[in-house]
């Protein structure tokens, strides 16, 4: 059984249908890239999977590890290993990054019936994972995303992912707004986290992220439907011909 099974998923925002029948199957150990133009529904897909209540599911089904994902609260999805790397990470003034992560990690561990990590073990883990994304230790002590540059925020998302060790990591336009060095560091973090038990869903507009993270599958999302799926060569084709081809097909 696949880790994530999306069947004929429909979703709307404020009454307007954005997702119009998505079918997608993601297995453990796989990296899937979902590419599409602005307004195609990429971000909606990631938010619906993560459980944002501003989006209304109007049809279809999503199974995660065999369970009905859409029936769960956002925090329960997270505790079961669904991680969303945000396109626009929010700031939480006054809450130290490490304190926030400790609360998150312990909530997840508690859900699994595990003991809380003690301070020493926790510190060891965050130091180790911070080095994975070249994260400055000063950023760990600062308030969550407060005053971070765009690149630092994205790096912080990957760092959080590395600490929380999800089963399914959905990265929503993690590459947007990054310069090439930052992009490389983020990609390096993702590659280090690739694992036979872990699946990735990379949501992206551009092909350039895929120069650094090699996907197993590429899907083209246009007007709320997946128009075509293929291997990494599909991304290269997109880079050459653009999305127009698929939009015409849709018309």
């Amino acid at each position: 059984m696949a880790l994530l099974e999306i069947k004929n998923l429909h979703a709307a925002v404020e009454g307007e249908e954005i997702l119009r029948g998505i079918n997608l199957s993601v297995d453990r150990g796989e990296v899937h890239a979902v590419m599409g133009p602005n307004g195609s529904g990429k971000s909606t897909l990631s938010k619906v999977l993560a459980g944002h209540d501003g989006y209304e599911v109007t049809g279809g089904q999503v199974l995660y590890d065999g369970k009905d994902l859409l029936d769960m609260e956002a925090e329960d999805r997270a505790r079961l290993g669904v991680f969303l790397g945000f396109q626009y990470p929010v700031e939480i003034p006054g809450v130290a990054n490490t304190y926030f992560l400790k609360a998150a990690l312990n909530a997840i561990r508690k859900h699994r019936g595990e003991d809380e990590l003690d301070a020493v073990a926790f510190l060891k883990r965050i130091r180790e994972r911070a080095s994975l994304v070249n994260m400055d230790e000063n950023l760990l002590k600062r308030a969550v995303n407060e005053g971070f540059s765009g690149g630092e925020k994205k790096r912080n998302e990957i760092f959080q992912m590395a600490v929380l060790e999800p089963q399914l990591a959905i990265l929503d336009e993690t590459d947007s707004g990054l310069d090439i060095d930052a992009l490389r560091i983020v990609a390096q973090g993702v590659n280090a986290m690739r694992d036979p038990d872990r699946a990735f869903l990379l949501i992206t507009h551009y092909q350039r992220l895929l120069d650094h993270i090699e996907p197993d599958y590429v899907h083209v999302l246009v007007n709320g439907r997946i128009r075509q799926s293929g291997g990494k060569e599909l991304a290269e084709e997109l880079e050459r011909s653009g999305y127009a081809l698929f939009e015409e097909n849709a018309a």
Partner: protein
Amino acid sequence: MSASSKTIEEITGKRGYEYGFVTDIEQEWAPPGLNEDTVRFISAKKDEPEWLLEWRLEALRGFMEMEHPNWAHVKYPPIDFQAISYYAAPKNQPKSLDEVDPKLLETYEKLGIPMHEQEVLAGVDTSDRKPEVAVDAVFDSVSVGTTYKDKLAEQGIIFCSMSEAVKEHPELVKQYLGTVVPRKDNYFAALNSAVFSDGSFVFIPKGVKCPMELSTYFRINAGHTGQFERTLIIAEEGASVSYLEGCTAPMRDENQLHAAVVELVALDDADIKYSTVQNWYPGDENGVGGIFNFVTKRGLCAGKRSRIAWTQVETGSAITWKYPSCVLKGDDSVGEFYSVAVTRGYQQADTGTKMIHMGKNTRSTIIAKGISAGHGEQSYRGLVRVAPTAKDARNYSQCDSMLIGDQCAAHTFPYIDAQHPGAQIEHEATTSRISEDQLFYCKQRGIGEEEAVSLIVNGFCRDVFKKLPMEFAVEAQKLLEVTLEDSVG
């Protein structure tokens, strides 16, 4: 309204008041009513000298001529001052800590307040013990016990109830009482000066750093009564002290009046840190009952380089009317005010500070954080005055409000009166909400909604909490959690 805003309203709308019990104990009362006889009754009960009775009576005459102030941004029905009993005390007054009524000890135990001194045993490692805290416990109108008095006395520190200070140290009381808050300063200060019962008295002699936290726990227990305590803290040249007060009361349908006066005096190079965790009963979810907390607190930085810092965490009371202030008279003196105030349900708070710069090169800092939820109404009111004598005075003020839900309100009334051209005054203010995006971000990381709200609110208050003594910072954080999210699930 989205699901999460709904949950926030549920979280913040319900009451999680843990201290609402009543202690069943035999008490004696003054008959209700306010007149010269009431004042004579209280003064006689306390066996006071004639000068103090006269002092009280003059305050009462002042009060009778004053008008009830109506400038604060709070609404309440007229208070019937004749319906209140101005004195209530447990019948059996203990002579020492060992004689305190077990019911009272039990009360303080339930409130989590240590009324026993830690015994020091020879040869026992005490390094992992909690720091010692000296406690004065005020129950309705009287102090029922003060711990560590003898140990503190070894260094010349006086820590006792105000009644005791009047008896044992009349010269100090006479010298300082009413010098910072004159007895006719304002309506409620005049009332307090006429009928004040107990409170704490602290005197730190020249050059002494008080070796432990001093604290007073105020408990209102009796019904149809008010609490009118008076606290006086004096730090002589080079002395320093950190003092904390806590307050709780039973849940009742009536409104009870708490009108206190606190005076602080810091001489040259003295340092007074005064922290408050105020958790009076706030009333029920419909706004019935709760304490009217009308308090005058003022510190006088009389000496050069002296420093007074007020830190307050105000989560209780139906109505709060309170402006802990600093008069910066000594050159190079420093005044600080750090405040977290929470209003929810139908609570109302009009609170802030006054910084009066008189000396040269005086500095003041104001950081006020207001959280308003439910139907809460909150106002920050602050005055920064720079007198013509205050050359090179500086002030920095920051007022941040957080709104939770869409039925509450936050207001800011900053007054600035600069009479010296060299004054530097900065004021920053922000208003924010807990956003859906912040909540979703927390939840996506596995953090439940309740914990997320408390995390965000605590982050908002962090600048103030870090000013509290360590042990109390943790308490304050917990209190905020209970206040905001006790009853979900």
